[in-house]
């Protein structure tokens, strides 16, 4: 990549920041050039963010219809997937999956609820009487 090929696509994701890229200047030396982002990279990051938003929405519908507990919704809302949440709360994925079921969730003890509450940055009280704000 030549210095004048370093993309300057003003990626919104950077919120005004710049990223360092390696490029070759006119005299053939490697330099660090600041980039305001690359369209291709912005697209890829947005795709990942949108996928989480979509998963959150799907889980929200399941929660609102009574088919799922708030755990699944909060998991995706916090940009976690099942393995990530499992590693954070130190439980097996299959166990967490069971807690997606409202009847199982309702019978959870304080200790387990506290683990989830910590992972999602909410209080146990909020988790018990969960409401989707928006």
């Amino acid at each position, binding site marked *: 990549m030549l210095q004048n090929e370093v993309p300057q696509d003003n990626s919104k994701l950077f919120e005004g*920041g710049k990223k*360092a890229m390696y490029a070759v200047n006119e005299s053939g030396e*490697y330099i660090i050039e600041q980039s305001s982002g690359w369209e*291709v990279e912005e697209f890829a*990051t947005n*795709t990942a963010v949108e996928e989480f938003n979509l998963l959150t929405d799907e889980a929200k519908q399941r929660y609102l219809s009574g088919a799922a507990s708030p755990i699944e919704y909060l998991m995706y809302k916090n940009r976690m997937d099942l393995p*990530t949440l499992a590693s954070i709360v130190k439980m097996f994925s299959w166990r967490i999956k069971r807690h997606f079921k409202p009847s199982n969730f309702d019978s959870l003890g304080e200790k387990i609820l506290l683990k989830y509450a910590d992972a999602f940055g909410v209080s146990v009280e909020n988790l018990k009487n969960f409401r989707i704000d928006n």
Partner: protein
Amino acid sequence: MNFQHRHAAHCESGVVSSMLTHHGLPMSEAMAFGLSGGITFAYIPFVKVANMPLIAYRMPPKKIISGISKKTGVKFAGEKFKNEQDAQKRLDELLNSGKIVGLQTSVFYLPYFPQDMRFHFNAHNIIAYGKENGEYLISDPVFDQPMRSDEAGLAKARFAKGVFEPRGFLYYPTFIPDSFDIQKAITKSIKRTVRMMLKTPIPIIGIKGMKYLAKKIAALDVKNARYAKNFLAHVIRMQEEIGTGGGGFRFMYAAFLKEAASLHPKSYILLEASNLMTDAGDKFREFALLCAKACKNIETADLNLISQALNNAAEAEAEAYKKLSSLF
């Protein structure tokens, strides 16, 4: 304190080079990355990240720190903590004694991180170099400017849970040699890298790993549009988004080879290899561009074309390693 923030492409190589430079052993980021043998390629289908296979263009976290220690004789002290209070107390102590301190953090909780760049990655390296009015002064290598963080935010980032759990991990150099045999270090680390990239017997590592991924891409089921699109976007992210300096670290490695050429008797080999590596980086970028184009119209995408682009990049990179083989 007289600490100079330096903008780098990657967090760990940025922190290590900044620290060594601060302590009187000047080193570029590319040199830290190359000497520690930071480059690799791995496509690990049975390890999933956000439902996607693990694709790595560089060695696992902490490899740059350990690699540099081995090659240069620098020694680091590292400390982990049971709770946030102890971790903060120790950090404050070290800062008060005039040290700059490396910290392992999660990008999801760092207060200054842009919203849409936040994912659960717990091995992000930063330097704390002071404290002012209850705020930490942070040199985060991947940001162009120095940053600040409040105590609570930094504590959260240092105690994120999950894979690569930091547990408040902090580190600082305890011994810096005045000099080291850089020619020997260059040859040794390149030898390791070449062997890994060309000769690893497992087909998911090195050049073979790239070709394996290329095959997987050609075989993607475009009828499952959501997965296919997410898969290709995931490949781009690992290659271009995650602080690689472009072309999945290939340009940074080319910069290392060029710098190495000015310090090594076989400079002509290193210069040629650097140019070949730049060519590989360019081909990786072409590949990323094709992936992004395909995502926009995934049902009619020509996956063979994308697969071929990755094979081209793999071939180009293999040429660079073959050239480097004549170093030893």
